[in-house]
């Protein structure tokens, strides 16, 4: 069974992928995505702050929309919060479907939402200090595709 969770702890993508197909034989495709903290520009750490209840509600609504748009069998979205260092996993999206195209489309749709409009804020720590990340135009364009 898929799950929607916001958590401080790390996750195991293999466990999450397996959970999407456990006990069923109608799944032909699982597309998944793992987002990771990049160590660009001497980034030392990134703290993710979530409006958790709002985020869970919006993620649930976007998963429901994805299930209306594509014939999906199950979906998982796991998003971490808290202080993460370069190389750490941030987010997991996994989509199970009969055919591969639907799972790829839906996984990218959910990631575009999560990376642009989900109620999270990022505090970047560098040797020069800590700064809240500002929204980026290219991410908005990615999310607009699905309108």
């Amino acid at each position: 069974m898929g799950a929607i969770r916001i958590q401080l702890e790390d996750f195991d993508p293999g466990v999450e992928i397996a959970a999407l197909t456990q006990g069923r034989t109608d799944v032909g495709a699982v597309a998944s995505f793992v987002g990771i903290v990049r160590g660009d520009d001497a980034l030392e750490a990134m703290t993710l702050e979530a409006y958790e209840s709002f985020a869970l509600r919006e993620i649930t609504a976007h998963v429901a929309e994805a299930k209306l748009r594509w014939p999906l069998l199950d979906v998982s979205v796991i998003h971490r919060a808290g202080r993460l260092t370069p190389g750490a996993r941030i987010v997991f999206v996994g989509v199970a479907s009969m055919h591969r195209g639907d799972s790829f489309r839906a996984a990218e749709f959910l990631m575009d939402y999560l990376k642009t409009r989900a109620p999270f804020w990022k505090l970047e720590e560098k040797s020069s200090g800590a700064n809240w990340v500002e929204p980026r135009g290219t991410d908005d364009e990615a999310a607009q595709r699905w309108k």
Partner: protein
Amino acid sequence: MKLLYFAWVRQKIGRSEEDIPLPANISTVGALMDMLVKRGPEYAAAFNDVSRLRTAVNQIHGGFDATITDSDEIAFFPPVTGG
């Protein structure tokens, strides 16, 4: 009513949430902000640049003219940057 603050709004105000009673003469997010600004300079600093401020009432994005009641959850935060 329950007030929530996130990211630099939270940092400037110095807390992540608080419960305060809604005064009878206040019925919009904007009027609530005017009231909070009078409570202290930390609110004035947080609400200084409204172009960079977003709000939600009961987890629904809205403008400063959104109406509020004493049972609402009202959140103030910068534009979201996603996960």
